[in-house]
Structures are given as C-alpha cells and as structure tokens.
C-alpha cells in the first residue's frame, strides 16, 4: 500500500514544496525590504522611490520633443534650467529662481537683449562642464526642422528670437540671436517680451550636451547626460524609466531618493496601484487615484492631513468646453452665453467624484499674474436666463449642435450626454459625435471643423497670462491645420487689446490681463470654462516630504523621501 502511493505522493509533495518554496523566498525577500526600510528610517535621503504610471506612459523624455505634463514632471528632476521652479509648496513653488544662472538676466534698455551669466563649476551627470553652449543647443533642438517639434512654433518661439525663423526654415546653421561664449549666454529678441524669463522656465530649455543629436523619433534619444538633480539611467519606452541621483548637482533642489523607478502600465485603471500604495509596495501613482475611489479614500485617509497619505492639489489648468465660433449656431455670441447659463458646471464636476476641482467661468487660473476672481454665469444651470438669451439671439431654426467627444473616456461620454440633455431644456437639439479615440485633436484643429462643442482645456506652459489668453485666442494664428485657437475666435479689437497687454509688464500687465479675462468671458464668450482641476493622489505610508507643484500638477519626485 505504501509503495504503491509513493510516486504520486512524491510528485504531490514536490508541487506543494514548489509553492511553499516560492512563497518562502518571497516572504524572505519582503522581510529583507522591511528591515532595510527600518534601518534607514531616520535619514531623509536614500532608498528607491517606486512610482507607477497607470493608464499612461511617457510620450517621450527627449527634452526637445516632450510636451505632456507627465513628461515634464520627470524632466523637472533631470533638467538644469537657467531659471527654474524651487521645491517649495504653494505659491512659493511657482516663483522662478536663477538656477544655472548666477542671477536673473540683465536686460538692455530697449528690452530686446537678455544676458545670462552661468554659475561656474556646473557639470552634467557624466562630469562634462555645462557652458552656455548647452542652452543654445536646447533652443536649437526645439526649433530645428530636423526635430519636427511643432510646439515651439505654437508658442511663437520661432518669431521671438532674432534668426530663429531662418533656422527653423533650414536657412541657417544656428540661431543668430543666441550667442554662447563660455559662461555667458545672450539672447537677442525681435521685440521686447516681458514673458521671456517665464518661458525659459519651460522644460524644453534645460541644459543639454552641445553634441546631443537631432531626432524626430521619440525613441531617438532615450538616455542622455543632464545637469539637474537626477539623470535618466535607463529608459525603456512604454515600460520603465530609472532616474539616478546626479552626483555633480550641487543646487538647492532636493535629491532625496537614491533612485526613482517609474513603471508605466497603459492598460491599468489605477486600482491595482492604489492597493499597492496601501500595502506599501508602490510609493505613488502618477495617474492619481481612480475617480471611483475618491470618496472612499478621502473618508479613510482624510484630505491633505499633515503627514497624511491622501493629497489633493490644484493644477494650473483650466478645463473648458471649446465653442466653434465659426460655425452656426455657436457663431452667435448670445447662443454661446446661453450655453454658459444652461449647461451647469457643478453637475459636471460631480461626475468626477469629490475634490475633483473648483468650478470657474474664467480663462485665467488662480496663481497666474492677472487672475482676479469673478463669476459671470454661476455654477448651476439657469435655464430661464439661457432661454432669454436665445430669444435675444434671434436664431431661427438653429441647426443641431455637434458635441464632439472622445468615447474612450467614460467621463467624456457622460459629460456629452449630460450636455445634450441640458440643451434640450432650452430647446436646442444636439448630436453626439465620437472622435477617433487615438486622434481627438486632429479634426478640431483643422480649419472648417464641424464641431460646435468640444471638451478640452489648457495647462500653463509658463506662468504668464499670455500663455492662456494670447496663445489660445489670437485669431491671427489660425491656419489650415494644427490650430491652437480651435475656437476659431478672431476679433480684431480683442487682438489689439491682447497685443497691448502683452507689451506691458509688472502690475500694469496683470491689470490689463485681468480686464481681458473678464472682457473675453462677458463680451465675446468663446468658450465654456468648466473647472480648475485638482490632482488627487495617494502616497505610501513611508513617503515623506511631499511637495506638490501646481505648475507641473505632480508632487516633486526629487523631493519625495523614502529614506
């Protein structure tokens, strides 16, 4: 009897042993982690910061091509800019400081020449010295025709600096208006530009090796020496990015974790990362928490408690419904006003769960120079006013409004359906037009587009109202394709007013833009501003020193401490 069962019993025991062995190895490994964590608890520095990126991945970490907020959050840890944002919470974190530059630039009397003097002894992560050439190359990479980086052109960088347009057109080897000599860097602008220093805070303008090649391929340059607190040690597109501390960085920004490991999971909805953060297996998810969990997480952990785990930070963005100002019936300003009354902001924000953002009917966002709070339309639907405006509009038999949305997002789908229902209350018909989930912006950025209402928004490229108002609503920039002004709003009076505001500086500039913000939303109404979003995120229990940047919309990764 015994002998007969020996083989199967042996095999069964092997199977059980395999399971037990694997689990034991795992538990042992886990125990090692715990003891290591305990030993270095007192230190702020050290450890590996484990970051997930659910439902997303980096477009690219090439500083000349990157434009999305998650890309920039990483580049902020690796870049050494002439001027940059400090690791400080709140408003202080939005004030630029001279980083690679010894001080803010000296500006010529005519306001067109900016001269920077770099600190001596700055080095890239490979030990090579950082000179003015590093910044000249950064500008040339963003504007080179070999890079196809359209974003620089959208921000009019090609017309900002002398010789930039010729360089972009391939007619010059270098941008003649940028002179690099040793540690001195001089910019010659085509006209005075009070936003110029703010623009240099963008993450396109970190020091790059003067030999960094041009490439239009996001996988063209994956790892490269950088001058900031960290450098990209490895970079597998769509998978894992490992940042390591740059031993040559001696600036004021934090270098807390030894390493920052960011794993991207495009297919994940964030639930798994949330559980892992709760179990201390992951420190932070760049996607934040899933909207469905917001109420439960807030109840369990509290919101923004000192040393707490659940954080809500306001972003420097505004989410809006863009109106097509060139297509009936949204070409009529009274219809646009009526929509601002009829749709209702708060009901839409509620779809996103608690603490998703604050309702707004402004284009400028809190924290920007020139932001002055006003309320023109209220946050809840006012059908009576909307109907009155519609009758005033004198639009007979208005065509159905085309609500364009991305069906890949359940929120956008619900929002579009809600808007259709709201419009029905004031007698307007609407049709829902789904976008290609992977190509949402292409059609609305093309002149002649057929949408009337499209969900979109804007986040600060740099902290200046020009970036919100002039960049989006200057109708003179409208081309056949690739339009940033996809409102197709073009008003010569407003264009002049924008030009005037852009020429001002200091308090006068702030006042002018505050007036423009109000004028835009009360007189011209090119959009339906909806809310200023927040970033809702959890950190693992071991994470300390959480400093949220409302410019990047993320906590500063280099500051997070897991030591």
């Amino acid at each position: 009897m015994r002998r007969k069962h020996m083989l199967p019993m042996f095999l069964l025991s092997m199977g059980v042993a395999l399971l037990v062995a694997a689990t034991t190895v795992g538990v042992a490994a886990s125990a090692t982690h715990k003891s290591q964590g305990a030993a270095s608890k007192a230190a702020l520095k050290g450890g590996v910061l484990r970051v997930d990126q659910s439902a997303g991945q980096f477009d690219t970490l090439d500083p000349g091509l990157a434009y999305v907020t998650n890309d920039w959050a990483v580049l902020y840890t690796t870049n050494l800019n002439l001027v940059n944002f400090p690791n400080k919470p709140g408003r202080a974190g939005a004030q630029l400081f001279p980083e690679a530059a010894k001080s803010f630039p000296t500006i010529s009397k005519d306001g067109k020449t900016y001269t920077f003097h770099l600190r001596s002894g700055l080095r890239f992560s490979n030990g090579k010295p950082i000179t003015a050439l590093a910044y000249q190359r950064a500008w040339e990479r963003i504007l080179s025709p070999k890079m196809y980086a359209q974003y620089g052109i959208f921000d009019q960088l090609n017309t900002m600096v002398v010789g930039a347009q010729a360089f972009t057109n391939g007619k010059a080897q270098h941008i003649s208006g940028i002179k690099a000599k040793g540690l001195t860097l001089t910019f010659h602008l085509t006209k005075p530009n009070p936003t110029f220093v703010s623009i240099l805070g963008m993450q396109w303008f970190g020091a790059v090796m003067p030999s960094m090649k041009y490439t239009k391929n996001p996988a063209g340059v994956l790892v490269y020496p950088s001058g900031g607190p960290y450098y990209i040690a490895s970079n597998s597109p769509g998978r894992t990015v490992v940042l390591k501390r740059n031993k040559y960085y001696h600036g004021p920004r934090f270098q807390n974790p030894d390493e920052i490991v960011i794993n991207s999971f495009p297919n994940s909805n964030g639930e798994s990362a949330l559980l892992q953060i709760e179990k201390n297996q992951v420190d932070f998810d760049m996607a934040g928490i899933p909207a469905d969990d917001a109420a439960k997480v807030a109840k369990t952990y509290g919101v923004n408690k000192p040393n707490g785990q659940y954080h809500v930070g306001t972003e420097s963005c505004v989410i809006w419904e863009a109106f097509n100002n060139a297509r009936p019936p949204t070409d009529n300003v009274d219809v646009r006003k009526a929509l601002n009354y009829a749709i209702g902001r708060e009901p839409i924000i509620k779809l996103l769960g608690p603490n998703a953002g604050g309702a707004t009917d402004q284009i400028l966002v809190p924290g920007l120079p020139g932001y002055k709070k006003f309320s023109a339309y209220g946050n809840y639907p006012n059908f009576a006013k909307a109907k009155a405006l519609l009758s005033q509009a004198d639009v007979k038999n208005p065509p159905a409004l085309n609500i364009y949305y991305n069906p890949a997002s359940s929120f956008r789908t619900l929002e579009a359906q809600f808007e259709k229902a709201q419009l029905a209350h004031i007698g307007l018909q609407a049709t829902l037009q789904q976008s290609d989930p992977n190509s949402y912006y292409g059609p609305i950025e093309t002149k002649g587009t057929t949408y009337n209402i499209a969900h979109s928004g804007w986040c600060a490229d740099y902290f200046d109202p020009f970036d919100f108002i002039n960049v989006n609503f200057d109708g003179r920039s409208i081309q056949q394709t690739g339009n940033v002004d996809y409102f197709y709003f073009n008003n010569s009076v407003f264009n002049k007013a924008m030009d005037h505001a852009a020429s001002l500086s200091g308090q006068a500039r702030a006042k002018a833009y505050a007036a423009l913000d109000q004028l835009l939303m009360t007189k011209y109404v090119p959009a339906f501003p909806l809310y200023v979003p927040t970033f809702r995120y959890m950190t693992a229990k071991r994470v300390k020193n959480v400093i949220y940047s409302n410019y990047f919309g993320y906590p500063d990764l280099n500051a997070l401490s897991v030591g």
Partner: protein
Amino acid sequence: MAYFLIRRVFWAIFLFFVATLITYIIFFVIPTDPAQIACGTHCTAGLIAHIRKSLHLDLPIYQQYWLFIWNLLRHQSLGYSFQNGASVRWLIGQDAPVTASLVFGGAIFWLTISIPIGILSALKPRSILDRAAMIFVLVGISAPAVWIGLILIYVIGYKLGWTPLGNYCSIVPSSTAGGCSGPAEWAYHLILPWMTFMFLFAALYVRLIRANVMETMSEDYVRTARAKGASASRVLFQHVLRNSMLPVVTILGMDIGLALGGAVFTETVFQMRGLGSQLVSSALADDLPVVVGIVVFACLAVILFNFFVDVAYAWLDPRIRLST
C-alpha cells in the same frame, strides 16, 4: 524521419507566411490613418504627408506587404512603434521574457500540481481526493482568469500580504531595476500569476491525466506486467505513465500557444508588461506595427512549438513517422 522533418519544416514556413499575410491584411486595411496616429496631437498636414511617405503608406498594399516581408527577412525588422518610436523587435525582446516567465513557469506549476493529482485520482477513483480534485477541476474550468487573478490578489496579496500585488522583476540582476531584479524577486513577483495559470490549466490536465491513466491501467499489457510480477512502481513508471503521457505532451504543445492568449488577461491583472499586455495597449492605440509584430511573433512561437511537439511525438511513438 528525414522526410518527416523536411515535410514539417516546409509546412511550418508555409504556415508562417500565411499567418503574416492574413495579419498584415487585417491590420493594415482597417479604416484608420497610421500617419495621423504616428504624428500624434497638434500635427500639421505637411508633417502627416512626410510621415506617410516615410512609412511607405503611399504605396499600394501589395508593395507595403512586400516591404514588410523584405524588412523582416533581410533586416529582421518588424518596423517601429507609432506611439513611442521604439523598434518593434526591441519591444518584443523586452516583452517576450516576461510572457515566457509567465507561461513556462505557469506550465511547470500546473504540471507539477496536475500530474500527481491526476494519478492519485486515477488510482483511487471516487475517493475523497478524487472528488476534491473534481471540484478543483470544475472551479478551474468555470472561472475566468481575470476573476481568479483578482481573488488571488485580494486574498493572498492584499489581505494576507504574503505576495506582491503585481509588477514583474527581471530574473537577471540589474543595477538599473531599482532593486527589483534577480531570481528571488522574479519568483516572488510571479507566484500569483503562476497560481492563476495553474488554476486555469491544471483543471484540464487533471481530467486528462486521470482519464488516460485509468484507461491505460485497464490495458492487457499492464495486466500482463502485473502477472509477471513487476512491482507497482515499475508498472506505473514503465508501462502506465509512459503511454498515458503521450496525449499530455501533444496537448501541452498546443496549450503553450493558447497560454499566450491567456497571458493577455493575466498580465493585465498583475500589471506585467509582457506580450499580452503590450498587444492590448497597442491595439487600443492603433499602434499597428506593434500589433502585427506581436501576432507574427506569437504565430512563429506556436508554429515552432507544434513543430517540436510533432517531432517529439514521432520520436516517442514510432507509429507516427511510419504512418507518414
């Protein structure tokens, strides 16, 4: 045997080309604009035109297919991802070890569990063990991989805290993996995915092995061996198992291919960046070169596995090659 091998090799090559052709037609003829996708947001008409030319999308479809085959054979290139510009071959090289770890590790798990249970059930039919095994079989067959994975994550990973809830660590120690590499971390992070696979496949294998062993035990040659005084273990090893394992080898070859399909769910649940997970994200993003590359790779893997199983089967059972 040589004729058999040559025939099988040619058949495998033919199958490979048919698979690439069908895949290419399906994925490159669907109504989407690869140039627009590759161009990304904020694109200009000039840039789209440039990309269309550089991707040879302006050529007739048969020329595009020819270029695809030419690049595949001549340069071993499957193209570049529209999403992030990475070489598809490189992406597959990154993903394949993850999926291989999952599938082969899972196969070892499910065989190690199902062989003893199957044999025990066959030796003691209608016993408590046999009935318990049947319940296990029913649960395994009925439950979807996603559900099993989520339950394991919740109970073993989250509530008990014995295992990680997800992620994958390379088996090769690396200084740029943030401490998540090496055989111990690799195995630790794969326990739950392997167990998920085990539940999925072990159920079928227990049934298969039980039936085969019971059938073989009633064969004349087994009775003869017993009558000649062979020991129970000798009968089991030499006569019963050898013969009852032949169908298992065949099914295993096919199931390894099927397991690649199962990996789509398992990798998604456990946040592993393998071929399955990559396939899903690329398909959702219309990243056609990656989708085609993975399908071609999977086809090649299945064809190769089946080829090796055919050869192994012919070697184990002479009747196969004699009949051909």
